[in-house]
């Protein structure tokens, strides 16, 4: 196989993922025009966004075919930065009693 044909194949290989990402986005737009309660809308849109991000991570960023050692290295790093986010939780709980409002 020549170099040129190999690089052409990769576009065809990832086209299904590309179309699925576009389809998920269009579903999100459709849902946005439905009269859903805001919490249900946010949760549903977030769930679809997580699906899109998962596809992007696995296929566009090749995490599905990466070495296991990369996973093993990234997992502790991810846990660490998520723990660091705990810094903001206390403020969030405080805000529950200080309901924000729009100026």
């Amino acid at each position, binding site marked *: 196989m020549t*170099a040129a044909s*190999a690089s052409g194949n990769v576009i065809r290989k990832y086209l299904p993922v590309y179309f699925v990402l576009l389809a998920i986005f269009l579903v999100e737009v459709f849902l946005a025009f439905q009269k859903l309660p805001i919490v249900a*809308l946010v949760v549903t849109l*977030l769930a679809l966004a997580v699906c899109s991000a998962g596809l992007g991570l696995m296929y566009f960023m090749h995490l599905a075919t990466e070495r296991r050692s990369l996973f093993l290295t*990234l997992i502790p790093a991810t846990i660490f*930065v998520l723990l660091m*986010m705990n810094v903001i939780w206390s403020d969030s709980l405080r805000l529950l009693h200080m309901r*924000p409002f*729009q100026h």
Partner: protein
Amino acid sequence: MSESEVAVHRQVAMPGSAAGHGSGDFMEGSPYAIPSRKLTMWLFIISDAVTFGAFLFSYGYLRVATPDWTRPFESASVINVVIMTFVLITSSLTMLGAVDASKSGDKAKAMRFLYSTMVLGLLFAGLHIREWFQLFGKGITISSGLFGQTFFTITGLHLLHVISGVVALLVVATKYSRGSLTPSYVETTGLYWHFVDLVWMFVVPLVYLTNIAR
């Protein structure tokens, strides 16, 4: 030292570099058998994801907790966002082509894909700025309440990432075309570009689609 020993030393010190420039090349060896450049980019992506996560979490909380939230986006804005998303996802596809072509050694094709990605990135930025000006026209700015503050902060941070990505792509493409950078640089920049795309997949539903005018 014989000539072959010198070659081995050079290989160990600079395995990822075509021309052997830059101190970063000496960090290429990794105890995890992952190229240091790629690992570093992944660690950056994780930390940057948390930055966006914190912003989006704060936004989500404020959005849900505020009953009279501003909903400025009409059909024209939604169509604009659909086009922006289409452009950004397509740019990820062209970036995949660039990475693959560079790995295959097809430099001309890699350059075409890289330039396509840059053009799509600039198009995205242009559409984004146009959207901002439409909001300015409606009197919504960064200092006009919670919506303006959160919207312009989050989308501004994302736009900054897109513009930085285009600049990074330009630098990498220029140096790669001259032969001073290896395909691994294109791959690492590609990881960053895909990350910017992934962040947009969270920004759109939270910041745009929950704020459609009714």
